């Protein structure tokens, strides 16, 4: 590797590491973290499971949309006032619906969603066992015929 190239790759990796470091800084809100470590952990866990409806593939912990920051503030305040996790989830769902949760609850509208992987896996096993059974019935003699055909 030439010296110039080395320098470029050094610069690129240096720039990348700086960029990765700033990622931590972006997520900070004006509200200070909770003093209680377990409360802070619960808060972080929860905001990492709530969808930001503006940038739908981001959680509100990831998103810097104004609505995400508003929701973080609201959740932070509720939890600071002693609201439990189910209470905060109920607060969000009653306003935005199940879609706001990355882990939607199991009920009449979501059973297909939760059941599909199980169903597909069972279906896969069914096909697999049928193929296996069919193969086991095949007489071994067929392979010898194939051998004779090769010169």
């Amino acid at each position, binding site marked *: 590797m030439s010296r110039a190239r080395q320098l470029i790759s050094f610069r690129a990796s240096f720039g990348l590491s700086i960029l990765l470091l700033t990622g931590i800084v972006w997520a900070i809100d004006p509200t200070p973290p909770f003093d209680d470590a377990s409360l802070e952990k619960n808060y972080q866990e929860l905001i990492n499971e709530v969808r930001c*409806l*503006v940038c*739908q593939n981001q959680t509100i912990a990831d998103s810097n949309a*104004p*609505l995400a920051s*508003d*929701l973080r503030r*609201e959740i932070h305040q509720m939890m600071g006032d002693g609201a439990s996790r189910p209470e905060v989830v109920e607060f969000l*769902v*009653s*306003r*935005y*619906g199940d*879609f706001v949760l990355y882990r939607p609850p199991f009920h009449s509208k979501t059973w297909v969603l939760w059941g599909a992987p199980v169903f597909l896996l069972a279906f896969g096993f069914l096909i697999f066992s049928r193929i296996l059974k069919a193969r086991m019935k095949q007489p071994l003699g067929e392979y010898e015929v194939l051998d004779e055909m090769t010169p």
Partner: protein
Amino acid sequence: MMWRYLMPLGIFIVLTAFFVKGLSLNPRYVPSPLLGKPAPEFELPRLKDPNSKLGNIDFEGQVALFNVWATWCVGCRQEHSFLVELSQENNIPIYGLNWKDDRDAALDWLSSLGDPYVGSAFDEIGDTAIDWGVYGAPETFLLASDGTVLYKHIAPLTREIWTSEFLPRIIAECGTLPCLELDN
């Protein structure tokens, strides 16, 4: 052995049905859990007069529109001329929720583009918007005279949507237009 050949076809048909349905849905549209429920309560300072309040009491007893808008919202500018038109037809009172906006900019907007609102509430920090499940302006709620949320439209309001989605619901609710002159 017929099923061996029919099964891929079956799977294909099922998948296609899912795709046809799934890909024609708008992922930006998130149905509101508020439909058919009482509108969330709020009381906020009015945009034009910070000393007086606007809240659910102002809607009471009338079928009304509640429109979430802001000067930073492009779609709001797009629908604004229609809202002004609608307000001139005088069929339904339009209330506004000025969402996370700058008061001066909002007042400027109303004086230069026209003011379709009976009154606008000024939601500076966005708490009321969260209570109403607002996630992207413009949003327009249709409220019944008893304060129930009848319908919510997310995206700029147009004449077509007004005619196809709002009018039938309003007529079902209060019989005839304008709803304004109903005696309570």
